[in-house]
């Protein structure tokens, strides 16, 4: 599995966010998106997730490859329990009930949310909601993770946990593209500066 992006141009509201973005990502590699507010980091992620059409250029990837996008919203339903929020996502991915339940419990355990399992989403703190959103990554395998500001509202322990999760994902051949303003534990990741599209 590999990803290639060629000459990507993104226009939002008649304003050009970035142009001529090129990069390649091989299995196990990570790319860190950097840039000031409004430079198009989120738009690039949404574009790669297929939510946003590119004004020009192309994204080449394996048809079979599965990608997970975690945006900066947590998508936690206040009425549903922590576990039910996650089970819904697992079932949305096509897992059967028993498997969805098992994977969700394991993911909550890993994210340190076991004690909050039965708690309705509305009682979770911002950091706990974020951990729940990130726990979605653990429910089923995917080749490419697209993460938009994943460390928002996370405490240092949770950031370290996320670092471990990212490392495990990469060791098993997964790819990560991550946008963040702060330091994320993502060793030897390449860096793409927006809006210039400079790769380093």
């Amino acid at each position: 599995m590999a990803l290639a992006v060629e000459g990507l141009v993104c226009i939002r509201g008649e304003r050009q966010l970035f142009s001529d973005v090129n990069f390649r990502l091989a299995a196990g590699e990570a790319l860190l998106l950097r840039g000031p507010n409004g430079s198009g980091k989120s738009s690039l992620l949404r574009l790669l997730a297929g939510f946003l059409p590119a004004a020009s250029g192309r994204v080449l990837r394996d048809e079979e490859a599965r990608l997970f996008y975690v945006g900066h919203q947590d998508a936690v339903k206040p009425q549903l329990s922590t576990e039910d929020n996650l089970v819904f996502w697992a079932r949305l991915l096509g897992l059967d009930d028993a498997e969805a339940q098992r994977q969700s419990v394991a993911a909550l355990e890993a994210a340190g949310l076991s004690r909050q399992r039965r708690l309705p989403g509305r009682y979770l703190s911002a950091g706990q909601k974020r951990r729940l959103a990130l726990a979605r990554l653990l429910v089923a395998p995917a080749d490419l993770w697209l993460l938009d500001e994943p460390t928002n509202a996370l405490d240092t322990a949770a950031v370290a946990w996320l670092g471990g999760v990212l490392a495990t994902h990469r060791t098993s051949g997964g790819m990560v593209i991550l946008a963040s303003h702060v330091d994320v534990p993502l060793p030897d990741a390449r860096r793409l500066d927006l809006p210039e599209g400079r790769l380093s």
Partner: protein
Amino acid sequence: MMKVFLAIVGRDLRLGFGAQGAMMTTLLFFVLAVSLFPLGVGPEPQILARIAAGVIWVAALLAAMLSLDRLFQTDQEDGTLDLLAQAPLPLGLVALAKTLAHWLTTGLPLTMIAPLLAVMMQMDLAVMPVLLLALLLGTPSLSLIGAIGAALTLGARRGAVLVPLITLPLVIPVLIFGVGAVEAASYGLTASPHLLLLGAFLAGTLTLSPFAIAGAIKLALE
């Protein structure tokens, strides 16, 4: 694919039947709106019986509009729409699942309670089966066309007002044939042409609206 479809329907039913769900407000509005007519028009049985079909249909139509603006909006606001778009299910079917849940929490309960209100409106008991059948065929069309309006107004600030403005003109055929069926039956004529037309309208909206809803949601995802 069916599993994923049912997962969406199941979750929306749980949310819909819940305390903040759409069902109770829709039903209460429907009951209140219809009960105002005997108070406003007066209790003469002939007058009430004459306007019963129209009143029940118009009230059902407005009640179904009540919760429509929230159909996709809550999911968009909290980011769930992104999750739904990542499901291994075409967006049109995702939309159909959500619309089915909307109908099960609004259209179906409205239909179930309508005979009670019809009795209050002095409607002939013999006409009841036709009223039920007409509502069963008509209310799914209301949800489907309403869902197009709901998806189109995603991100608009006054969605609650815009949805009825977009949707109501499009559901006039449902109103005409729905009332027509009940009136025909109350005059002792056959209601089947009206019911067949309601069925045809439902078949059309069921096949076409998922494409329109999916298109509108794609725009909102940008």
